[in-house]
């Protein structure tokens, strides 16, 4: 009985702020009452019409997409290398090393980036690619953690040994066995990375240039204006994060389904 009440209370605590935001985004006037009065879509129309929000929206999507792509290009080979490392001590060391950024405050990372990239030698502060680079540092540990632990859980080593004894070459093993077997873990890793990238504020706020601010950075400005507008803009961020995760999931599943179909032939 008591566990159930704790669960319900916790759920309410989780959902209430979001529910309130959604309600506020559709309310016409919200001053000193508990709930707003009147219903309108005006705030969403305002957000959609705002050029800086429109720009931030596409920037955020672009940065998230690039971060995910880099995670696959860099993270997948890295995860495989860590998994196949010969000595257990080396594996443990590599895991500690790639988990380090989790303990690193994004603020510290941002200051480091500002120091390095405001110099005359590397004058890239404000470019969208620098934003992507930072998001890779922040997201990659989660991607690696997901993929490496799944490699162990799946017994990928034994699967590869089996494939090798059955006559496959290294390249065949990678495309027939390793990639398809890992599709679910790559997918869940990308969902985490996409959600992190879309919602990231600390780092982006300091490093993004004026013309390529991400959505959360622009969102902060909204809170100096009308409550309904701020609520609507926040709900859009929530929807954006969810959409990025889901489309990332779907497109990754699409491609892996293709390779799985190839493998099944």
């Amino acid at each position: 009985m008591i566990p159930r009440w704790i669960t319900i209370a916790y759920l309410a605590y989780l959902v209430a702020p979001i529910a309130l935001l959604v309600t506020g985004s559709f309310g016409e006037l919200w001053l000193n009452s508990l709930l707003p009065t009147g219903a309108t879509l005006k705030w969403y129309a305002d957000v959609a019409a705002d050029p800086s929000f429109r720009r931030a929206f596409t920037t955020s999507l672009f940065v998230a997409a690039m971060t995910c792509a880099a995670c696959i290009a860099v993270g997948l080979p890295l995860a495989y290398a860590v998994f196949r490392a010969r000595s257990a001590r080396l594996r443990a060391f590599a895991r500690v090393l790639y988990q380090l950024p989790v303990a690193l405050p994004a603020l510290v990372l941002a200051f480091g980036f500002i120091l390095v990239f405001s110099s005359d030698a590397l004058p890239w502060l404000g470019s969208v690619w620098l934003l992507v680079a930072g998001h890779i540092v922040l997201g990659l540990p989660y991607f690696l953690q997901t993929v490496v632990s799944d490699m162990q859980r799946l017994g990928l080593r034994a699967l590869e040994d089996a494939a090798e004894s059955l006559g496959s070459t290294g390249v065949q093993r990678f495309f027939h066995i390793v990639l398809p077997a890992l599709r679910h873990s790559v997918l869940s890793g990308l969902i985490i990375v996409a959600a992190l990238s879309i919602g990231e504020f600390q780092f982006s706020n300091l490093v993004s240039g004026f013309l390529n601010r991400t959505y959360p950075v622009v969102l902060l400005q909204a809170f100096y204006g009308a409550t309904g507008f701020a609520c609507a803009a926040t709900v859009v961020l929530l929807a954006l994060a969810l959409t990025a995760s889901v489309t990332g999931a779907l497109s990754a599943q699409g491609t892996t389904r293709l390779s799985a179909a190839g493998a099944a032939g």
Partner: protein
Amino acid sequence: MSTGASAVRLDGVGFRYPGSNAGVFDLSLAIASGELVVCIGPSGCGKTTLLRLIAGFLRADAGRIELGGRDMTTAAVRARECGVVFQSYALFPHMTVRANVAYPLRVRNVEAGERTRRAEAMLEMVGLAGFSARLPHELSGGQQQRVALARALVFEPAALLLDEPLSALDAATRLTMRDEIRRIQKQQNIASLLITHDQDEALSLADRIAVLRDGRLVQVATPQEIYDRPADGFVAGFVGRANLIDGDVVAADAVETPLGRLAVLPQPRPAGERVRLLLRPERIVPRAEPGGENVFGVAVLHDRFFGANRELDCAVGNGRLKIETSVRGAIAHVHVPRDAVQFLANP
């Protein structure tokens, strides 16, 4: 074996794990076509190392490995054409049963129709007709085992290597699969090596048993020979239950042991020699009355009932005896027939 046409031949094969003394040493073993050799030994004795050396996952430091008459000592895994059944089965989780079984044919560029036909035929042979569209996780442990067997056999490999194939199964399935492995292996007439630590499995499956201890082969012989004439106390104790009793020869037909003086069949060892004797528990006979040759009074310490049999641990004189019998009542005396006493080679 005698023809020299062994499908698998190991000659003085050695392998040491870098930075340790563990490995296998000077292994010589030949497996003929159609023969099933079971390699048995305690954990860490090098059984799996032996299998991985033959399959090519490990490279031998010394000696020679021949498969199908060809020197494969340094060949790559995929060139060796060994069908391997892994302990975990290692079925590809994202492929259907049919795709799993057809995989070896796919990487050999066998035409699609042909490989489906051969995969289906092999699935039927292992008793899984109608399961080809399933995914591995939709099958029971025994069924997964059958898929792994079919996949390892479909490309007509030079040898079949099975690494503790039954250890992940429940007791009932294990018995069924034991018979199935035997049937399929005989039907395919393929040279096979099965690794296990289970003596029942070894005795019931093998054409020959190879007993491995600390990386060395202690004895290679038929199950009956291993059981009836074990090379030493280790083999006697590892394969089958055994009473190992140390004693001193007092006459050509008598040995002084902690049980008391034991009459034995006449033998040539001189009086005073220290010997180790083997008494199999099922050869010891309960007696109702005391008196007579080799009849000892016993005090039962443990009595385990298994239905058809009982296994008893008894105190006898200053020693202990394990006894296996179908007698139901109380047991106070036992008789040790002279021909039930075996002298082991190295005391």
